[in-house]
């Protein structure tokens, strides 16, 4: 190409009009998009708005791993309206995009508006305004994050979603187990159930209206389904032995569960209308932790039929199970990516347990975390992030990692031990 350029140059020598030089660019850099989110202007009672919307947006964008928000201390100016923006200032600090906004209180409502700018092109990319009550201010902030994310990455944002998780608190002899649902950034936790006996394995229904979980409140493992809006629940299975690992089918009509009623733990599929049971696995050992593929055609589960805990895949209609994992001496706790192409799992190798992602197409396994006891991976509904449980000191906490492994962040939640996070579907 360069030769062509020189040839063009030679031609240019002969003719008085100069023609263009062509330069090849064969690589770039990979990394987060630098963005500046300026604190929103506030017009209302008090010195600040009830929620710091720009801070929520910055945290969301940072947590996704795709953006790097300029720290507040590095902001060169604080415009709140388009007319106040001087692009040269922002070019100097090398941010590609700028977000400014305003909140205006009017009685019980808040008018929230924001604008997203392309700094180097010097134009507006998006601008919206909303009218919400106080209790929805955080939701609007997450919605703004979604809009910015989609405009700049082309992918759907998952900031306006929720997570369900279990906490334990109290002394070892007097523990309290709580099942909660919170915003995906850990804020606004709502208690779903409290118990003195263990609570485990929460699972979202595909429409996000219900949670299935395992409760030992009756001194044995039993599966319940609870409506989140009303709190009403029903006991789904209470067979002798294990009742565990409930997983909703993508069409919401069945639940895959683990039962040991026939002697050892096997996978069963239960019709939620008729309660009819269909056994899916047959092995002398352990078969548990079923998870449906997004197309509903197969189920991945954990089995030790090969001598150690590994992941297997079986058609949902029944048949031969095929082994999926061949690296490491322990692979369990699978979760499917929303596009059905990847599986996150707890991967044990060399003494530690980490979150790894298996690409089903290529068979490549990639370890994303470096804790010693990481567990319970769950994909975000846009497939870009994985939330999981990890240890920090003596505490159990939640963390999120981008699917390419490049960005990891701890979620700051309440005190106590937090475990078993599950990300809600979209629209919650």
């Amino acid at each position, binding site marked *: 190409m360069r030769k062509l350029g020189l040839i063009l140059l030679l031609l240019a020598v002969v003719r008085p009009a*100069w023609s263009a030089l062509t330069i090849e660019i064969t690589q770039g850099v990979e990394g987060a998009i630098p963005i500046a989110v300026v604190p929103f202007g506030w017009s209302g009672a008090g010195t600040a708005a009830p929620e710091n919307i720009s801070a929520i947006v910055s945290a969301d964008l940072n947590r996704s791993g795709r953006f790097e928000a300029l720290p507040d201390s590095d902001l060169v100016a604080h415009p709140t309206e388009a007319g106040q923006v001087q692009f040269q200032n922002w070019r100097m600090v090398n941010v590609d995009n700028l977000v400014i906004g305003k909140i205006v209180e009017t009685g019980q409502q808040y008018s929230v508006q924001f604008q997203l700018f392309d700094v180097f092109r010097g134009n507006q990319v998006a601008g919206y305004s909303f009218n919400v009550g106080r209790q929805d201010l955080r939701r609007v902030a997450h919605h703004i994050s979604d809009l910015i994310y989609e405009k700049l990455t082309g992918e759907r944002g998952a900031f306006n979603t929720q997570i369900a998780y279990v906490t334990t608190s109290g002394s070892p002899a007097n523990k309290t187990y709580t099942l909660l649902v919170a915003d995906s950034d850990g804020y606004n936790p709502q208690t779903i159930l409290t118990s003195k006996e263990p609570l485990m394995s929460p699972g979202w229904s595909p429409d996000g209206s219900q949670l299935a979980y395992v409760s030992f409140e009756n001194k044995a493992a039993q599966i319940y389904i609870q409506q989140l809006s009303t709190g009403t629940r029903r006991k789904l299975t209470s067979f002798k032995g294990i009742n565990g690992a409930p997983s909703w089918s993508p069409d919401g009509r069945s639940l895959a569960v683990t039962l040991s009623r026939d002697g050892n733990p096997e996978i069963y599929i239960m019709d939620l209308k008729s309660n009819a049971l269909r056994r899916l696995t047959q092995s002398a050992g352990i078969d548990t932790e079923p998870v449906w593929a997004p197309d509903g055609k197969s189920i991945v589960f954990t089995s030790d039929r090969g001598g150690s805990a590994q992941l297997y895949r079986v058609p949902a209609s029944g048949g031969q199970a095929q082994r999926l994992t061949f690296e490491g001496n322990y692979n369990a706790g699978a979760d499917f990516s929303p596009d059905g192409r990847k599986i996150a799992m707890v991967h044990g190798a060399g003494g530690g347990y980490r979150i790894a992602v298996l690409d089903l197409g290529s068979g490549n396994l990639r370890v994303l975390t470096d804790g010693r006891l990481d567990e319970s991976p769950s994909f975000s509904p846009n497939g870009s992030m994985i939330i999981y449980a990890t240890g920090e000191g003596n505490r159990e906490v939640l963390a999120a990692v981008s699917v390419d492994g490049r960005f990891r962040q701890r979620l700051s939640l309440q005190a106590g031990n937090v475990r078993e996070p599950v990300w809600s579907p979209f629209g919650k």
Partner: protein
Amino acid sequence: MWQAVRENPRAVAYAVLMHLVLLTLLVFSLDWTPKISHPPGIKVPIEAELVDQRQLQALEEKKLAEQRRRDEAEKQRLAEAEAKAEAERKREAEQKHKAEAAARAKVEAEQKRKAEAAAKVKAEAEQKRKAEAAARAEQKRESEAKAKAEAEQKRKAEAAARAKAEAERKRKAEAAARAKAEAEQHRREAELQAQIAAEQEEARARSALSEYIPYIQDKVQRNWLRPPGSAAGLSCLIKVRLIPGGDVVSATVVRSSGDPLFDRSVETAVLKASPLPLPTDATLFNHFREINFNFDPGR
């Protein structure tokens, strides 16, 4: 035949004579004696002598033999005569032939002589004619040659005149051409000088390019945030206009990658890389006024 007889009387006479002789001989050689034939009833007086049957037989046989001998001799004689006659005839025929042949030959020879004579005459006549013709031709040639020579002279004279005129024209044209060539020469020299100057400039530009292209590439690459989700194999060509100093005043996508996010990242990259590093020699700016960037990571 009668002409032949008349023309060759002697030959004919001899022939007739021969024939007569032969005829005579023939006649005399024949036995005209009639044989006595005794009628059966009449007994021939025999000299009676008692003869032995055997003797009689012998006699009979003798007689027979004699007769036979005689017959044979006769036959022989006849044959001989015949043969002779034949021979004669042959001889005669031959002679005739010979004579005829001779006569023919004569005739032929005569004819030949005549023909030769005629031919001779003809030839002589022919020669005469030829000579006359030659003489005439010669005359003609001479007169023609003369005419030719005259014409030639005329032509030469004309040609000479033309040549003169031509030469004159040539001289004029050459003079003009020379003048033109000189002017051309001047122009070419000027052009050459310009070319040299341009080549020098080009050389400077080339070295500047080879020095600065890597800097430009590096700065743009450092500022290009590749969208992580984009497909492999995308490429985008963008045209960038600069002002002296390297500031980018316009960036337009010339060939889109098909992915708007990729295109936008490319635009942002060149805008962020502004001002591009350019050589300090402002005279080389024209080579960098407009730059196309082909973003083609390949993978």
